[in-house]
C-alpha cells in the first residue's frame, strides 16, 4: 500500500524557512561538485585542444636529449623510417630580442623549413606573407607579441645567439591561435637555416623533428622502428597525448583539491538535510502517531519522509546545477590561470552534470534514511500521549559517531592503499611524488590522498562534538569566573541551554566544525608548504642575488660579475639533463669551493665538509634525498651519469636534503671539473652572487647593468620565494573560497536548528518572559547561545584542521624549517571569527523569533 500522496510536499510547505535553508545547503554542495567536475573536464579538454593545436598533424616529436642536437644523419634517419610520411625538423631555442636600444625580452626562436612546417601545421596570417625557404632574413611573429612591442610588417629586430647575432625583418603576423600560442606567444619563426646560423648549429642538424605517421602503419609501429634505427645518439620521443598530460598535470592537483573540498561541502549539506528532516520528524511525532493509529504502516510513514527528501534533493539539485554552471565559468578561468594551457569553457560537461544530479539526489536520500527509520519506529500510543519528541540526542549522536568512524576508516584505508600502490611512504598523500616539480616549487599538498586524510580526521573530530561543546561551555565559565558577579544572565542561560542537551545541536556543531576545520587545514597546509618552499630556497640558493642565463653562457662571465662593486663572491652553476640507468634526471655542476662557502646544501647523516671535499677532489657526487630514494642510492654507491657527450662514474659522497631542481626534479650535484671532463658539459646556467658586508643595497641595479649586455637577468632569491608563495596563495585562495562555502552551509544549519529550538522552547521562553526576561534579553540569549556554539565549532575545527594539516604535510614529506607543524594563526583567528561571528549572525533571525514570543500565548502552549 502506498502512503498518502503529497504528505511530504505538504510537510515541506508548512516549514518554508527550513525548506528554503535545506534546499540552499544542498544547492551549494551540488553547485560546487558540478563546478569542480566541469572545471576538471574543461581544463583537460583545454589542455588536449591546446596540445592538438601545437602538434597539428604531427603524431610524434623526436627531441634531442638534453641540450644536444639531432645530427643531420639522425634527422635523415627519421625521415627515412618506413611509415613516416612527413617530417619537419626544427631548431627551437630561447634567446633575447632587441629592437635598437629597446629590449623586447625573452623569446623562443623557432627555425623551420617553411614548406615542411606548413605541411604539418595550419598557421594563419593576420597580415603579411609566409616565409620563403630562402628568406634567411625574414621572420613571422604572433600578432599579440608584435602589438605589445609596436612591431608591424617590415619592422626589424635583433636576436642574440651562441653563433652570433642576427637581424630579422617581420614578413608576416600570425593570428594568436594554434602553435602561435606556445611559450606564451613569445615566438619568432624564421627559416631553419637562419636559426642554425644564429645558434651555431651544424647544417642538417635540428633540436627536434616533428613526424607524421602513415595511419596504416600506426604510431606504435613507427616508434618501434625509430628505436631500432636511431642508435647513434640519445633522443626523447613524445606524442600529442604526452603534451596534453604535461599541460594538464599543472592543474590536476588543484582540480582534485577542488573536487574533494566540494565533496566535503556536499557532506556538510547532507548533515543539514539529515538535521532538518530529523527536526521535522520530531515535531510531527504526534501527527505521525495519528497516521499510524489511522492505519498507516511503518513503511508508509517512512516513505513520506523519503518523499520529503526527494523534493528537497530535487529542488536543491536543480538550483545547484544552475549555480554550478555559473560557478564553473568563474572557477575555470581561475584554475586556467594556474596552468600553461588556455581554458576555453564551453558547454557544461554532461558527465559533470550527471554526477552532480545523481550525487545531489542520492546524498539527500541517504541523509534522509536515519530520520525515515526513526519515523517508522514512532509508537502510535506514545506519540499521541507524549506529543512532539523534539530531541533524540543519544541515538543521533551514536549514528553520527558510527557514520563518522566508518568514513574515517574508509578514508584512512584509501589513503594507505593509495600510498602502497604508488610505492612507499614518500609518495603518500598524493603530493610528495611531486614534492618538487619541474619548477622546483614544492607542490601544493592538495592531492586526493591528503584530502581524504583531512576528511577522515575532520569526521573523527566531528563525532566528539558533544564533548567539545561541554568543553566550550566550561571554558567560557572558566574565562568569565573572575567577573561572574557581573555576568549577564543571558550568558548563564545560554551556557546552561547548550551544556544541558548538547546532542540537540551536535549535528550543527559537527557541520560547523568540518567547515571551519577545512579552512584551518587548508591554511595550515598552505603555510607548511610555503615555509618549506622558502626554506628550500634558502638551502639551495643562499645568495643575495641570482644572475640567470636563458641558455648556458661561458663561466668566465662570472669574473665580470665579480668585478661589480659590492660583490663578494660569484658561484657559477650549470644545470643539465643526464640519464641514470636509462631514466631522465637532472644534474648541476658547481664549483665546490665557492658553493660550499655560500653555506649551501644540508648534508644528511654525514659531514658537510667531507662531502664537499670529496666533490672538490673529483669522482664524487652529492645526491638529493628525493633522487636517492628514487634510485635507491646510499653514500658510497656508484652512480653512473650519461649525457650525449660522455659518461661519468661517480661515488655518492653524501645525501643532501634538497638541491636546485632541473627539468626532471632535484639535481645530482657534481663538480664543474667532472662535468667538463667526463660529461662534456661546460658553461653556466646561473650565477649565485653574495654581496660584501654592507654592500647589498643597490647591488641589484649594479648587477643588472653588468648583466644586460650578456642577455642575463638578475633575480633576487626573495623574488623566487615570492613566486612560490604567490602561486600557492592563488591555489589555496581558490580552495579557501570553497571551504567558506562549507561554513555557509553550516550557518544555514545553525539558523534552522536555532529557529526550531526557539519554537520548541516557546513555553520556556514565555515562562522566562513572565519571570522578567526582557525582549532584548531574549534576543541576546539566543545570540549568545549561538556564539558559544560557534566557539565550540571553532575549537573543533581548529583542532581537527591542525591535526589534518599536520597529517597531510607529514605524509607528504613536507615540513616547516623547524621540522614541526607551525600553526597558521591567521587561519585560527579566521576560524574563530567565522565560527563565532557566523554563528551569531546566523542566530539573528531565530533571536528575533525569541524576542517576539508573546508571554500570553507562550504560557498557553502545551
Amino acid at each position, binding site marked *: 500500500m502506498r502512503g498518502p500522496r503529497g504528505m511530504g510536499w505538504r510537510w515541506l510547505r508548512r516549514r518554508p524557512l527550513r525548506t528554503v535553508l535545506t534546499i540552499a545547503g544542498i544547492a551549494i554542495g551540488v553547485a560546487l561538485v558540478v563546478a569542480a567536475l566541469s572545471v576538471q573536464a574543461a581544463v583537460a579538454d583545454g589542455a588536449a585542444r591546446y596540445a592538438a593545436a601545437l602538434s597539428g598533424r604531427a603524431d610524434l616529436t623526436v627531441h634531442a636529449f638534453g641540450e644536444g642536437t639531432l645530427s643531420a644523419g639522425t634527422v635523415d634517419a627519421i625521415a627515412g623510417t618506413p611509415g613516416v610520411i612527413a617530417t619537419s625538423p626544427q631548431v627551437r631555442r630561447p634567446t633575447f630580442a632587441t629592437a635598437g636600444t629597446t629590449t623586447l625580452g625573452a623569446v623562443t626562436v623557432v627555425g623551420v623549413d617553411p614548406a615542411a612546417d606548413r605541411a604539418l601545421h595550419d598557421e594563419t596570417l593576420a597580415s603579411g606573407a609566409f616565409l620563403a625557404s630562402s628568406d634567411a632574413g625574414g621572420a613571422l611573429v604572433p600578432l599579440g607579441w608584435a602589438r605589445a612591442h609596436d612591431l608591424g610588417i617590415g619592422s626589424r629586430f635583433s636576436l642574440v645567439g651562441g653563433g652570433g647575432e642576427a637581424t630579422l625583418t617581420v614578413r608576416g603576423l600570425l593570428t594568436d591561435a594554434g602553435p602561435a600560442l606556445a611559450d606564451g606567444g613569445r615566438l619568432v619563426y624564421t627559416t631553419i637555416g637562419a636559426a642554425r646560423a644564429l645558434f651555431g648549429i651544424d647544417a642538417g642538424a635540428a633540436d627536434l623533428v616533428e613526424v607524421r605517421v602513415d595511419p596504416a602503419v600506426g604510431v606504435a609501429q613507427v616508434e618501434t622502428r625509430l628505436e631500432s634505427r636511431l642508435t647513434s645518439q640519445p633522443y626523447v620521443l613524445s606524442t600529442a597525448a604526452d603534451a596534453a598530460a604535461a599541460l594538464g598535470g599543472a592543474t590536476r592537483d588543484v582540480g582534485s583539491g577542488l573536487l574533494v573540498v566540494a565533496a566535503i561541502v556536499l557532506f556538510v549539506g547532507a548533515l543539514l538535510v539529515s538535521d532538518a528532516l530529523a527536526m521535522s520528524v520530531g515535531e510531527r511525532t504526534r501527527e505521525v502517531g495519528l497516521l499510524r493509529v489511522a492505519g498507516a504502516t511503518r513503511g508508509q510513514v517512512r516513505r513520506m519522509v523519503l518523499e520529503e527528501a526527494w523534493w528537497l534533493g530535487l529542488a536543491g539539485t536543480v538550483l545547484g546545477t544552475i549555480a554550478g554552471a555559473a560557478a564553473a565559468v568563474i572557477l575555470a578561468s581561475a584554475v586556467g590561470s594556474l596552468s600553461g594551457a588556455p581554458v576555453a569553457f564551453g558547454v557544461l560537461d554532461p558527465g559533470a552534470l550527471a554526477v552532480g544530479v545523481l550525487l545531489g539526489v542520492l546524498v539527500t536520500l541517504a541523509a534522509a534514511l536515519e530520520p525515515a527509520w526513526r519515523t517508522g519506529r514512532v509508537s502510535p500510543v506514545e506519540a499521541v500521549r507524549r506529543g512532539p519528541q523534539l530531541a533524540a540526542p543519544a541515538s543521533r549522536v551514536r549514528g553520527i559517531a558510527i557514520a563518522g568512524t566508518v568514513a574515517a576508516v574508509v578514508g584512512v584505508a584509501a589513503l594507505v592503499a593509495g600510498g602502497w600502490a604508488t610505492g612507499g611512504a614518500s609518495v603518500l598523500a598524493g603530493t610528495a611524488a611531486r614534492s618538487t616539480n619541474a619548477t622546483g616549487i614544492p607542490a601544493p599538498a592538495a592531492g586526493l590522498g591528503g584530502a581524504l586524510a583531512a576528511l577522515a580526521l575532520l569526521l573523527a573530530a566531528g563525532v566528539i562534538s558533544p564533548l567539545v561543546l561541554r568543553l566550550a561551555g566550561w571554558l567560557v565559565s572558566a574565562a568569565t569566573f573572575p567577573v561572574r558577579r557581573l555576568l549577564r544572565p543571558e550568558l548563564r*542561560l545560554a551556557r*546552561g541551554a547548550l551544556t544541558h542537551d548538547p546532542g540537540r545541536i551536535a549535528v550543527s556543531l559537527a557541520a560547523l566544525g568540518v567547515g571551519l576545520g577545512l579552512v584551518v587545514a587548508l591554511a595550515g597546509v598552505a603555510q607548511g608548504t610555503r615555509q618549506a618552499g622558502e626554506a628550500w630556497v634558502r638551502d639551495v640558493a643562499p645568495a643575495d642575488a641570482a644572475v640567470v642565463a636563458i641558455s648556458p653562457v661561458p663561466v668566465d662571465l662570472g669574473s665580470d660579475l665579480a668585478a661589480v662593486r659590492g660583490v663578494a663572491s660569484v658561484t657559477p652553476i650549470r644545470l643539465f639533463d643526464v640519464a641514470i640507468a636509462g631514466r631522465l634526471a637532472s644534474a648541476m655542476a658547481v664549483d665546490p669551493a665557492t658553493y660550499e662557502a655560500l653555506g649551501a646544501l644540508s648534508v644528511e647523516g654525514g659531514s658537510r665538509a667531507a662531502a664537499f671535499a670529496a666533490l672538490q677532489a673529483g669522482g664524487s657526487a652529492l645526491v638529493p634525498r628525493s633522487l636517492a630514494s628514487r634510485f635507491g642510492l646510499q653514500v658510497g654507491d656508484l652512480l653512473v651519469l650519461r649525457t650525449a657527450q660522455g659518461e661519468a662514474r661517480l661515488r655518492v659522497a653524501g645525501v643532501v636534503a634538497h638541491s636546485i631542481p632541473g627539468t626532471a626534479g632535484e639535481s645530482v650535484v657534481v663538480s664543474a671539473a667532472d662535468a667538463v671532463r667526463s660529461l662534456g658539459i661546460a658553461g653556466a646556467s646561473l650565477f649565485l652572487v653574495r654581496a660584501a658586508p654592507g654592500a647589498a643595497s643597490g647591488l641589484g641595479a649594479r648587477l643588472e647593468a653588468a648583466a644586460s649586455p650578456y642577455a642575463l637577468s638578475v633575480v633576487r632569491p626573495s623574488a623566487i620565494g615570492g613566486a612560490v608563495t604567490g602561486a600557492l596563495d592563488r591555489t589555496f585562495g581558490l580552495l579557501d573560497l570553497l571551504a567558506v562555502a562549507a561554513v555557509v552551509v553550516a550557518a544555514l544549519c545553525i539558523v534552522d536548528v536555532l529557529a526550531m529550538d526557539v519554537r520548541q522552547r516557546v513555553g520556556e521562553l514565555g515562562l522566562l518572559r513572565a519571570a522578567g526576561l526582557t525582549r532584548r534579553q531574549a534576543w541576546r540569549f539566543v545570540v549568545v547561545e549561538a556564539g558559544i556554539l560557534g566557539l565550540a565549532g571553532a575549537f573543533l575545527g581548529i583542532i581537527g584542521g591542525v591535526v589534518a594539516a599536520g597529517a597531510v604535510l607529514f605524509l607528504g614529506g613536507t615540513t616547516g624549517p623547524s621540522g614541526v607543524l607551525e600553526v597558521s594563526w591567521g587561519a585560527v583567528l579566521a576560524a574563530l571569527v567565522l565560527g563565532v561571528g557566523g554563528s551569531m549572525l546566523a542566530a539573528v533571525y531565530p533571536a528575533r523569533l525569541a524576542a517576539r514570543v508573546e508571554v500570553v500565548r507562550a504560557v498557553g502552549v502545551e
Partner: protein
Amino acid sequence: MPPILEARDLARTYRVGDGEVRALQGVSLAVQPGEFVALMGPSGSGKTTLLQLLGGLDRPTAGEVVLDGVTISSLDDDAATKLRRDRTGFVFQAFNLVPLLSARENVALPFLLAGRDPLDAETTARVDEALALVDLAAKADRRPDELAFGEQQRVAIARAIAGRPVILFADEPTGNLDYATGLEIMDYLFRSCAERGQTVVLVTHDAQAGAFADRVLFLRDGRVLEEIRLGRRAEHPARPLIERLAQLGQ
C-alpha cells in the same frame, strides 16, 4: 489602606478572523495587601485574560491596571517586564520550570534575570527560605525532570515568592495535579499568604482550590457576576462555596 492592585473598567477584545471576541467587558476590582483573591468562572468566562491583564502580561483594550501605585497597563513592554520581575510572581498550570536549571537555579531565576549574582549571600538566603517554605530544601539540586509534578509546582511557588513580590498570580496551579497534590499546593499558597502576608490572586475552576481564598470573584461572559466573601479561615471546606455557586446556577 490603598489597594495593592486595582483594575478600572478593564476591557479586552480579540480579533478572530473577521469578527471580534470580547473577552472582558468593563471589569473593575481592587485587591488589598495580604489578601487572597480567587477568580472563578466557567471556560471562556475571561478569568485567565483578567489575570494576564492584572499581571502586566497583556495590555487591555480599554481601562487600566494599577499595581503597587504604578499604572502597569500604560507601560511599554520593557518597563512592564521590569515591574513584573521586581514586584510580581507567577505560577502557571504548565511550563512552570526551566528544564535545564536545577530547582535552586529555577528559584533564583528572577534574581538572575535582574542581573543579580544568584550566589550572593542575600539571594542564597532568600532562595533557601523559599525552598524551605515549600519543603524542598533537600531536593534543591535536582532538575525538574527528577521531581514529581507536585514538587515541580512547589518549586514554581518557591520561585514566585522568593523575590518577595508584592503580589503573586497563580493561573490554575492545580490543573495538572491529582486531588491530594492539588490540596497540598493550595496549602502552600495559603501559608505564604497567612504566614508571610503575601497577596495572592488565583485563577481556578476548582471549587476546592477556590475555597482557600478570602474572597472569590465569579466571572461570566467577561464580567464580574458575583463576589463571594469567605474570610480568612484555618480550615477550607469547599461546601459553602459550592452551595453559593449552586445558588448562582453554576
